[in-house]
């Protein structure tokens, strides 16, 4: 057990190339910018104060923000994202982007329902608040400070999916898969739009899946297995890409069948796991001659 722990620790704090931290920071900033840009945040202002509910990082603020203030936070966040892309004070800009996004999503979700749509992005990105980012001239540097943030991000991803799977077993047991649970999830999801929820894209297909118990049970089993084994998929470099594909299929089917928008999850997984599926000396968008697989600069 001690040897295993020691190996995990060695891998976590092994040196890594500067370009990997920069790549993942840029990709996460792109995911956040996409979410920031594609939502009308001023709608938060229409919620009466009496209907605000739930504990969030924004619970200290009890007022109702004006539409102009909400749009201003959105614009500041997007400006910070541009600075991250342009590599102008990227660390400071990323902190600004994270604060803007986290504040707006916390306010958006303070209506009584725990909103998970953006929570994975916020948690994974939080690792990079403490990460050093290399200057343009330091992308080739191999340091411990550039090695641990991408691995910490992978660990947060693995933890989130594993806990999500474990909670299903804790609260429902094997019946989550082997009962007609998924059939009723689908049938309830298909009617959610009647009370203001999202309308599924593939209604007929969802009805067909709900009709055949073995198909819906297989879907449930596949989803639970994927969540519980996330740490294994993400621990091995060669299976990370497969995990990205698998979670995209899982969240894509949720969107198709019950209309829930969880696109930020596979995008966040891809932002971290795709660069981390490459050989350590191979940059995502730069030439490969920067460092050796062992982490030492190539001559």
């Amino acid at each position, binding site marked *: 057990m001690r040897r295993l722990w020691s190996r995990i620790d060695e891998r976590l704090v092994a040196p890594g190339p500067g370009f990997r931290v920069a790549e993942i920071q840029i990709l996460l900033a792109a995911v956040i910018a996409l979410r920031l840009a594609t939502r009308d945040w001023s709608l938060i202002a*229409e919620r009466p*104060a*009496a*209907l605000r509910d739930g504990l969030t990082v924004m619970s200290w603020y009890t007022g109702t923000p004006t539409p102009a203030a909400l749009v201003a936070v959105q614009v500041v966040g997007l400006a910070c994202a541009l600075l991250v892309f342009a590599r102008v004070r990227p660390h400071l800009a990323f902190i600004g982007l994270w604060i803007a996004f986290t504040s707006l999503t916390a306010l958006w979700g303070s209506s009584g329902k725990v909103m998970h749509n953006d929570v994975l992005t*916020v948690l994974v990105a939080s690792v990079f608040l403490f990460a050093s980012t290399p200057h343009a001239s330091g992308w080739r540097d191999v340091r411990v400070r550039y090695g641990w943030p991408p691995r910490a991000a992978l660990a947060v991803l693995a933890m*989130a999916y594993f806990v999500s799977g474990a909670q299903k077993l804790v609260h429902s047991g094997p019946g989550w898969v082997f009962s007609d649970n998924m059939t009723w999830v689908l049938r309830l999801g298909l009617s959610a739009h009647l009370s203001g929820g999202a309308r599924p894209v593939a209604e007929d297909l969802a009805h067909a899946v709900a009709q055949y118990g073995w198909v819906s049970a297989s879907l449930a089993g596949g989803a639970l297995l994927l969540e519980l084994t996330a740490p294994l998929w993400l621990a091995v470099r060669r299976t990370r890409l497969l995990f990205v594909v698998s979670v995209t299929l899982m969240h894509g089917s949720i969107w198709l069948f019950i209309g829930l928008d969880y696109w930020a999850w596979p995008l966040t997984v891809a932002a971290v796991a795709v660069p981390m599926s490459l050989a350590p000396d191979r940059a995502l968008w730069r030439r490969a001659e920067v460092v050796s697989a062992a982490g030492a600069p190539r001559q």
Partner: protein
Amino acid sequence: MSDQEQSAEQKREARVGRAVTWSVLAVMAVVAVGQLELWPLTAFRLFSETRTADQTRLELVAEHRDGTDQPLLVSETNPVVVTTDRQFGDLPGESEEVQREMVLAWLSVSGVDPATVASVRLDRIAREYDEDARTWADVDRTTIVSVDP
């Protein structure tokens, strides 16, 4: 920078890495085990309860002074406001003053003039699924609480 200084620097960076990583994972674990919801810290309970054929839903109904009933459709066009229907269940446990505030807020976002409403009642509705029609039908209705706005 000498080799010794470089090694000390790398050790310091490793300590920061360990502290950040294990702290974040430990907080996530505590929140999950404690079933806490302190957004963005969450217990990740996504569809964790088993769904069955026995379904109920809550509905707010405005009883107008002219004797007509109107179910409140809470601002279906605003995704921020629409999820406030999750708070219908909190209504019976609140003080009369808070109940009145909440009901007035729901009337407002539903576009209903409070002056035309005698009272607002909260109904629990039992539902059954019709396999042929592929829809849910209301089969029983019980009033849980009634509030005068």
